[in-house]
């Protein structure tokens, strides 16, 4: 059964200098991006950043203002939505409320033409349709719900119907617009796993829009971070997290976000030092990286988990690192976030919830894990180098 469901189409999606503007407003600005055949690509960004517009251009619900958009090897700028061989899962699921589950799943098969066994495209027969409906319903565990109306389904079930409606036409690519945002936290976590499993089974390209970095990091083969209509960085989750290409990505990925503060380069070479208002930070920049010249201004970025608190309860023992005053402690069971004031900036430290938590108002020293420090150019906000 599975072999039937697996798509055979080549489903690379290629954006070449694609721009979309609504009147004066530029929603997507010169996007160059290749979605590789079969990959799970997440478009990640804050609301209003243009990521949904990107998806809607692929779907054919928005026109491309400038540039070239290809699906497979075909330029689809002027191809109608129904002829693009893509299926979309909407945030609201967009199920037809007056049709039962069977009719909803059948809907993409009714009007369009399909090529069966490599033949010329034609309408599917009733038995072909019902066979596909059965397959899709079984894949998503909906077999017992086929005669229900959407109103009689739970949120999770509706979401599955929307997925079934997407897979039934065996498209070249799935487009998903925040499909999990209407589910509660527990169901969302379960469905994440199921989506990854579905992707593994079908092997079809998925372009998935979300503002939730947890969804992005847990599901994506690659993440494309978008802000202000521009692609900020594209890469595997860990790459984007560990080596953010600019300050926007650094701040956007990770919760709590990366700490950043301005400092001056105090020592050059491979192992350097920067000094800021609150103290010195040693940097182990690694072999491939050269520090800017001594005296340059830089923005230092440190993830909360790469800070160590020194000497709360043992005052004055440590004079290196950043002098910090504890302003809040958030306890999350398995870890705690110590929020400190460091020379007027808020710096967050993440540490295992073991031992004595620092007291409010206490002065502590923060040690930085030297080989995890990132430097950014304060003028361009790009990472150095």
């Amino acid at each position, binding site marked *: 059964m599975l072999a039937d469901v697996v798509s055979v189409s080549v489903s690379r999606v290629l954006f070449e200098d694609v721009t979309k503007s609504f009147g004066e407003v530029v929603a997507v600005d010169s996007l160059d991006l290749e979605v590789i055949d079969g990959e799970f690509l997440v478009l990640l960004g804050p609301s209003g950043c243009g990521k949904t517009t990107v998806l809607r251009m692929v779907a054919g619900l928005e026109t491309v203002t400038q540039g070239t958009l290809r699906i497979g090897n075909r330029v689809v700028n002027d191809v109608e939505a129904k002829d693009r061989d893509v299926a*979309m899962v909407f945030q609201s699921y967009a199920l037809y409320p007056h049709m039962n589950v069977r009719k909803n799943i059948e809907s993409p098969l009714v009007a369009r033409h399909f090529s069966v066994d490599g033949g010329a495209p034609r309408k599917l027969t009733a038995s072909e349709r019902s066979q596909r409906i059965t397959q899709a319903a079984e894949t998503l565990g909906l077999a017992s719900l086929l005669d229900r109306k959407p109103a009689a389904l739970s949120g999770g079930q509706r979401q599955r119907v929307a997925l079934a409606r997407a897979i039934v036409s065996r498209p070249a690519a799935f487009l998903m617009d925040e499909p999990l945002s209407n589910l509660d936290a527990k169901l969302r976590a379960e469905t994440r796993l199921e989506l990854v499993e579905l992707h593994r089974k079908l092997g079809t390209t998925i372009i998935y829009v979300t503002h939730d970095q947890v969804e992005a990091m847990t599901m994506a083969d690659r993440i494309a971070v978008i802000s202000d209509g521009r692609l900020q960085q594209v890469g595997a989750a860990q790459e984007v997290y560990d080596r953010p290409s600019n300050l926007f990505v650094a701040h956007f990925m990770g919760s709590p976000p990366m700490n950043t503060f301005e400092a001056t380069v105090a020592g050059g070479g491979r192992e350097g030092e920067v000094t800021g208002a609150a103290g010195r930070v040693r940097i182990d920049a690694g072999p491939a990286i050269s520090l800017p010249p001594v005296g340059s201004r830089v923005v230092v970025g440190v993830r909360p988990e790469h800070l160590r608190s020194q000497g709360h309860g043992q005052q004055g023992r440590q004079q290196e690192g950043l002098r910090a005053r504890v302003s809040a402690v958030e306890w999350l069971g398995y870890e705690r976030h110590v929020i400190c004031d460091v020379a007027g900036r808020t710096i967050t430290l993440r540490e295992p919830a073991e031992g004595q938590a620092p007291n409010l108002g206490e002065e502590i020293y923060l040690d930085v894990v030297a080989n995890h420090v990132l430097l950014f150019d304060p003028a361009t906000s790009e990472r150095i180098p």
Partner: protein
Amino acid sequence: MTKPLAVPVDEDHVRSRRRSIKDTMLGLAFLGPSAVIFTAFFFYPLYRLVWLGLHQQNRTGTRERWVGFSQYADTLTSADFLDGVRISATYVLYTVPLGLVLGVLLAVVADRKLRGIKVFQTIFASTVASSVAVASVIFFVLINPQVGYFGDVSFLSLSDPGSALRGVALSSVWQNLGLTFIIVLAGLQAIPAEINEAATLDGYGPFRRFWRITIPLISPSLMFLVVVLTVFAFQAYAQVDILTGGGPAGATETLVWKIFSDKEPSQYGEGAVMASGLFVITLGVTLAQFRILEKRVHYGA
């Protein structure tokens, strides 16, 4: 903790009884205004109607005598009443489907995000602000056989018994168009954009989308309009009075016209019986519409 257990329970009981009395009083107070209005303008007139139907008036309408249900039997089987029913039913068939189709068409045309579309929406909706009298005068000017601009359009001619009812019906269609337009447009705009987009991706062309998606999703609005327009049509009076006065040759004597016009005081009883008949017919038709249409109407998730 030292208090006996029974005392607080008892206090609770008293408190809850006091509260339920208070709730009842409040409920009655809320019901009061509508109860007064319904009694004065609906229940009492209905009682008087039935009562009048059981009596016959003298020539000046100052005295009456009991005639019982024989007046009901005679009037409801009379040729006059049945003729009125036939004309009113025809009037319903002329006005309701045409009005509904035109209203839906206008609403579909106007349900677009275009510059200046509000102007058209306002124009299409404007007839809702006109009265029956205004609509009738406009159509009098348009299709009156002597002075009308389209007085010689035989299909609508008010001087021909075969077509006069159509002419009158057209004025009703026009007058109710604004209401139909507004309600259908509201229904169309309540359809989530994503549903239409999903249908687009599913390859639905405009016609398929209209029949498979749009019509089912606005079916509650359509059902409301079918019921309301039918009731309006059964109640048609002023347009008949202004445009044709029931003529020619009684061809436009709708039921309400028969009830109200050309009645001597001695015929008040007959009129009351006809009015009761109209009430029962309207009620029956409306109930039938609910039973038939309800199954096909989809109310949102």
